[in-house]
């Protein structure tokens, strides 16, 4: 599989660990997600008016790139090369949704996608993987989950202030983005990839094998959607409305 963004990887270690191929596929999703986040923040910097915001977006981009590198390094420790592919089926759709918001110069929509939707999934799933992953692999996931959580806190302040100006308009926007992005994210963590391969697993789909490393798609999906709902609660969206949104997502 083609590595789209180089990460200064050194050669993989000689002896792969048991379950290394499962971790390889999990890491491939994480690295791709982080690289896409880095690209998203870089794109976001192009529509920021305030130089401080520009600098902050670029700083975030650098941070996400660092996360991707950290995940790739964990792969090497396991003796596997971790591929990435931001053109993989699901990630590409999410990236396109984000870039539509960039094209519209919609800073708030970009934050909603990146900080509320994508980061909810990242924090919740990394936290779970952090508990299941052995040694430094688990520690890296847990540490990055904690860092991502900090991003969310900062973005929430901006988004809450934006919602306060016109709650109805804000909620309409969140719902529109929810349909666009969350549909894809939930398909990504569905029990089965019903629409074919995700373009990241190195051979067959990794989902049926997750239990071998102490994970399940049920847990990853449940924790991710729970985190997403709580993030929307924190923004002040009515819980009964967001519950309907989530329950209407594909199973």
């Amino acid at each position: 599989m083609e590595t789209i963004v180089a990460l200064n990887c050194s050669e993989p270690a000689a002896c792969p660990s048991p379950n290394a191929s499962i971790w390889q596929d999990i890491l491939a999703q994480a690295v791709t997600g982080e690289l896409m986040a880095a690209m998203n923040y870089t794109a976001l910097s192009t529509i920021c008016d305030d130089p401080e915001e520009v600098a902050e977006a670029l700083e975030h981009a650098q941070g996400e790139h660092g996360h991707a590198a950290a995940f790739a390094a964990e792969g090497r420790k396991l003796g596997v090369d971790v591929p990435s592919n931001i053109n993989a089926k699901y990630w590409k759709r999410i990236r396109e949704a984000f870039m539509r918001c960039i094209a519209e110069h919609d800073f708030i929509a970009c934050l909603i996608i990146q900080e509320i939707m994508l980061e909810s999934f990242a924090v919740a799933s990394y936290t779970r993987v952090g508990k299941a992953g052995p040694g430094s692999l688990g520690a890296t996931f847990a540490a990055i989950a904690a860092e991502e959580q900090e991003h969310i806190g900062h973005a929430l302040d901006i988004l809450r202030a934006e919602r306060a100006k016109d709650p109805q308009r804000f909620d309409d926007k969140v719902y529109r983005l929810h349909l666009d992005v969350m549909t894809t994210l939930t398909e990504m963590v569905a029990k089965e990839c019903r629409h074919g391969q995700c373009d990241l697993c190195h051979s067959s789909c990794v989902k049926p094998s997750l239990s071998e490393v102490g994970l399940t798609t049920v847990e990853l999906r449940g924790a991710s959607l729970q985190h997403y709902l709580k993030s929307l609660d924190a923004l002040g969206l009515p819980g009964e409305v967001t519950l309907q949104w989530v329950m209407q997502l594909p199973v």
Partner: protein
Amino acid sequence: MGHAIAGIAGQAQETGVDFALIGHQESWRAAADVVRVLRGPGRAPVPDEDIREIFPWIPPRAVCRVEVSSTTGAKARGLYIDSFIPPDRLDGAYLYDNIGCVRAAAACAINASAGIVSLGGFSSILIEGNFDLLPERRTTVFTTGNTLTVGFIVQGIRKMCAQEGRDLCRSTLLIVGATGDVGSGCARCLAPFVRRTILCARNCGRLCALAAELEADGANTEIATSLEQLPLRADIVICAASLPSPSLLLGRISPEGVICDAGYPKNLHPNSDMPGARIFFGGLGQITSGLSFTPDFSGILNRHPFPDVAHGCLLEGMALALEQRFEPFSQGRGSITPEHVKAMEAIAARHGIHLAPLYNAEGPLEGAVGTPPQPESVGCKRSRAPNENDDRKFGAPGSVPGDWPAIAEA
């Protein structure tokens, strides 16, 4: 579609509701129905297996808006908040998780600036003696709602006895879960009017204390710590135990006994072999001037064969909201007296909230129109009459839920 949902969002931004009802689903079938309504028409149903997987992850939150109307013309607006405790996780093994769910649900009610909150089903059992476990309440007050539940159980017993031609004062009453808030309230209301009362619960100390209290008022009582040890055959039974699933098998019961199953979830095992017994589901009331849900959860959140029926515990919060009495009417454990019950029944009745028509798992036991209650219309009194001028007692100390009995008391 998006617009419609956004419209709901707009409504939800109104600050402050009169009441909130905290509940949970008693079966997976009920949980599946909730999911079906939330998904809306035209979407593929969620397989049962997936519902069991999804449900435990849903954070406690409002599910729908509720509006209740009074016969006086008043209306009260509220929220139904589900704690999303999975129906198969009501037992003691999940105690602390479940307390966390109720706390989070309570926080939703507080954030919505609810005037009064009713704690339905296990929510009240988890919290009743431990209101300090709830988040900081600001102006929101909480009631377990158990007083009105007791009122409707007692009314149901009287009505069923009248229908069946049973003489209450010649009957032996068995209360299962007797030392719980609901069970002890029923004992105080009915023990003076029956020949003998058997109090059944696991905690011998509490049983003895309750028996002594009732006997001091002239009642004739027996106690039993298990259903296998009943000293007498009972003619009338109130099942008010907090069981995580319907599992109760009654032993020494008259072949044609009157049995009120007031549990949520139900107490009686579905395969109980009592062919001659007259079983009904107790503690339910009916709102005569209307109850509506947005989105429409009619028949889903209130799964009864009659319209606008709800559990007494939830109706208590609605009645108090209609009455504009935002006070913690029922709190603590074991403090419900006949005087409290009478006062609560009067409040409910003023707003057209009466005993629901009786029914059981097989269907209605009477017509659709409920008869307004006639307290104490049946039976003979054995001790002093309830005095509605007595001081009300709130917030009596309760138990610590860490001591979770196999058969707890509702």
